[in-house]
C-alpha cells in the first residue's frame, strides 16, 4: 500500500508526457499541492496512475478503490475487495452509503484507514481514488457511472447497466470519452462453466442455433403492502430516490425490494435477465447487435406497491443473422428440471435451477442453469474436449480480475459497457412492450424505437436536479 507520508516517493512520473491519461490523475505538482494543502486528518493514497506507465496503472501496482452503496450486493463486493486488500492486491480508500446504519457497518467491516461518505460525489473529487464499485439501486447505475467516468474513475457497476435506453447511451459515451474501464456485474460470463458452454456452442455441437429460450420463476407479489410513512432516521430518502421523481417514502421501496418496482428495479427481467440474456448474447456472438422487434405480455400483480410483471413472456426477433430470443417467467412447476449431478464435480450441485436458458440448434439442444455467480452447463458441455483445430473462446480470469486487467492494460472487459447496455436494452425494451401492451420495433443502428412516439419518449426519463446524467 502506498500511503502518503508527506514526501514524494522516488519514481513519480512527471506531467508533460502527452500520453498521460487524464488531468484528474495526480501529477507531481498537483500531488505536492494536495499534500501540502491537506495537513490531512487521514493519510491519502497515491493514485496508482502516478507511478505507472503513462495513462495506465502499473501491472504490479495496487488499484485504489472506493465503494458506493455498501448494502446487499454492495456488502458482498466490499467483503470481496477486503479479501483482495488483505492479499495485497488493492487499496480501499472509502465507503459510501445514504443509509447511515449501512455506512457504519461497512466502516467497521473495512477497518481503519477507510473514509466514510454520505455523498458519493466527495469520492469522485478525490484524486487518489482510481476506481469505484457501484452497487446502488438500479436507478442510480447510469447517473453514477457517468459521473464517475467523467471524473476519471474506472467503474465496476452492478447489473443491470441502466434503466433507460438513454442512460445506456450516456454510459457508453462517458466511458469512451474518458477512457475508463467499465465492468458491469453480469458475472455469469466469467464463470468457469460459462466458458465451457460458450466453447461447446461455438464449435457447432448443436448445429446452427436459431432460438434461445430463457426461463425464470415468477417475480414476487407484494403480500405485505403498507401505507406511505416518514422515512427512517438513518435513511436519506431524497438521495435514495436520486434521479427518480419525488414521492413519499414507503418501506416497500427499499431496501432490496426496489427490484420489484418497474422504475427502480424492473422485475426479474432486468435482474436475472441481465444475467441470463447476457450469456445468450455472449455465446451467440450477438454483442453489439439488437432485435428488430420486441413483443411482451405479462401478468400484473394483484395488490401492493410492486408493479413488475409476475409472469412474463417476451419475444425478441433478430435479423441477419436470424434468430429468436425469448424471456419467459413461468410457474415453478413449468420450469425445466435441473440436471442431476453430484456435488463432487467441479461446480458442485446446481443450487439455483430456477433460471437459465435452452439453446435450440438444428442438431440438438443445450441447457444451462443460473447465469450469474452460479452458472452451470449441461454435462455434455462439461465433458466435451476441444479438438485440434477447434475454436477456443476467451476464458475470463474472474470478473474482477478481468476488470483489473482492463484498468491496467486498456483491454476490453468481458462485460464492457457497450455489451452491458445492449443486454440492459433488451430488458428495458421487454418491460416497455409489457407496459405499453404492444409490439415495438427497434432500430439497432440508430438505437431507437421506430414508429411509436410514446415509446420513444419512454426511452429516457427526465431526472431530478441535480441527480442527472
Amino acid at each position, binding site marked *: 500500500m502506498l500511503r502518503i507520508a508527506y514526501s514524494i516517493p522516488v519514481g513519480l512520473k512527471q506531467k508533460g508526457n502527452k500520453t498521460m491519461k487524464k488531468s484528474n490523475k495526480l501529477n507531481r505538482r498537483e500531488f505536492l499541492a494536495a499534500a501540502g494543502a491537506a495537513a490531512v486528518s*487521514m493519510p491519502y493514497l497515491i493514485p496508482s496512475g502516478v507511478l505507472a506507465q503513462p495513462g495506465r496503472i502499473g501491472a504490479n501496482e495496487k488499484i485504489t478503490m472506493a465503494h458506493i452503496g455498501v448494502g446487499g450486493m454492495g456488502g458482498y463486493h466490499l467483503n470481496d475487495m477486503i479479501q483482495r486488500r488483505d492479499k495485497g492486491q488493492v487499496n480501499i480508500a472509502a465507503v459510501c452509503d445514504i443509509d*447511515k446504519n449501512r*455506512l*457504519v457497518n461497512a*466502516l*467497521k467491516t473495512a*477497518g*481503519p*484507514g*477507510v*473514509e*466514510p*461518505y*454520505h*455523498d*458519493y*460525489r*466527495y469520492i*469522485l*473529487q478525490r484524486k487518489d481514488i482510481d476506481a469505484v464499485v457501484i452497487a446502488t439501486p438500479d436507478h442510480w447505475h447510469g*447517473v453514477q457511472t457517468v*459521473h464517475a467516468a*467523467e*471524473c476519471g474513475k474506472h467503474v465496476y457497476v452492478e447489473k443491470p447497466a441502466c434503466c433507460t435506453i438513454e442512460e445506456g447511451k450516456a454510459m457508453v459515451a462517458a466511458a469512451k470519452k474518458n477512457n475508463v474501464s467499465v465492468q458491469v456485474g453480469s458475472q455469469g460470463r466469467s464463470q468457469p462453466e460459462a466458458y465451457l458452454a460458450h466453447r461447446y456452442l461455438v464449435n457447432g455441437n448443436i448445429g446452427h442455433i436459431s432460438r434461445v429460450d430463457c426461463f425464470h420463476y415468477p417475480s414476487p407479489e407484494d403480500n405485505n*403492502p403498507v*401505507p406511505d410513512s416518514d422515512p427512517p432516521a438513518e435513511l*436519506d430518502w431524497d*438521495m435514495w430516490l436520486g434521479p427518480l*421523481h*419525488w*414521492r413519499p417514502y414507503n418501506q416497500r421501496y427499499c431496501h432490496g425490494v426496489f427490484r420489484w418496482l418497474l422504475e427502480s428495479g424492473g422485475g426479474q427481467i432486468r435482474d436475472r435477465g441481465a444475467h441470463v440474456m447476457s450469456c445468450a448474447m455472449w455465446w451467440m456472438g450477438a454483442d453489439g447487435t439488437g432485435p428488430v422487434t420486441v413483443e411482451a405480455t405479462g401478468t*400484473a400483480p*394483484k*395488490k*401492493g*406497491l410492486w*408493479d413488475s410483471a409476475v409472469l412474463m413472456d417476451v419475444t425478441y426477433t433478430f435479423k441477419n443473422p436470424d434468430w429468436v430470443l425469448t424471456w419467459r417467467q413461468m410457474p415453478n412447476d413449468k420450469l425445466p428440471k435441473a440436471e442431476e449431478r453430484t456435488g463432487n464435480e467441479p461446480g458442485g450441485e446446481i443450487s439455483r435451477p430456477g433460471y437459465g436458458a435452452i439453446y435450440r440448434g438444428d442438431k440438438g439442444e443445450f441447457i444451462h442453469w443460473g447465469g450469474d455467480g452460479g452458472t452451470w452447463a449441461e454435462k455434455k458441455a462439461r465433458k466435451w474436449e476441444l479438438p485440434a483445430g477447434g475454436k477456443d473462446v476467451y476464458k475470463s480470469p474472474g470478473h474482477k480480475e478481468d476488470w483489473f486487467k482492463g484498468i491496467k492494460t486498456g483491454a476490453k472487459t468481458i462485460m464492457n459497457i457497450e455489451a452491458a447496455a445492449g443486454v440492459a436494452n433488451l430488458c428495458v425494451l421487454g418491460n416497455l412492450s409489457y*407496459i*405499453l*401492451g*404492444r409490439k415495438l420495433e427497434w432500430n439497432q443502428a440508430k438505437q431507437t424505437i421506430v*414508429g*411509436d*412516439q*410514446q*415509446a420513444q*419518449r*419512454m426511452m*429516457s*426519463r*427526465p*431526472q*431530478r*436536479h*441535480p*441527480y*442527472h*446524467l
Partner: protein
Amino acid sequence: MSTNSFKKVSIAAGAAAVMAQTADTAYAQGVDGLLAGIKSDSAEKRTEAWQSAGEVGAPAVKPLAEVMTDDNLEVARAAKRALWQIVRYTGWPGANKERRAVETELTDLLGDDQPVAVRREVLWMLSEIGARNSIKPIAGLMKNESLREDARMALERIPSKRAVAALKAGFEKAPEDFKTNIAQSLRKRGEEVAGYPCQKLVPTKKTDVKPL
C-alpha cells in the same frame, strides 16, 4: 407509397379501427362498470378492471382521478393504474383522436382544486402523451413549489419547440433557487444557458460518521 409508409399507414388504420371497436364495447359497460370494478373488495376484480381501463378511455379520466385518493390504498392504487393504462393505451400509434381526448381530460386535472399527488401523477402522464395543449398548463405549475420540479421534467420530455419555449419563459421568471433546474432542462434540449452551471458533480451532503 413505399413499403414502409404503407406499413405505417396500415398499422395506424388498424389500430384506430381496433380502438374504436373496443371502445364501443367498453362504453356499453360504461365508466360506472369500470369504477365498480376498481372499487371492488376483490383484488382479482380490481386488477381485471384497471387492466381493461384503456378501452374506456377519456370519459373515465376524471372519475378515476377522484378515486386515486380513496382511503382504501388498494382501491386508490387500482385507480391510478387504470389511469396509466388509459395513457398507455391511447399512446398507440395512430390513435391521435383518442390521445387528444385523454390529454384534454388530464390537463383539466392540473388545477389547484386537485391534490398535489394527483397532479404530480398527471404531469408524468402528460410527459408521455402531452402535446401543444398541455404545455401552458404544465408550464404554469413551474410556479408551484410542490410541483415545479415535476412540471420542469414533463416539459423537458415533451418533444416540441413550444415546450422549450415554455422552459425558456419559465427560466426568466423563476426564483434563483430554481433557475439551475430549468437550465438543466434547457441544456438537455440543446439550448445554451449563460450562467447557472451544472451542479451534478458538486457534493453537498456530508456525513457525521467518523472514520475508525
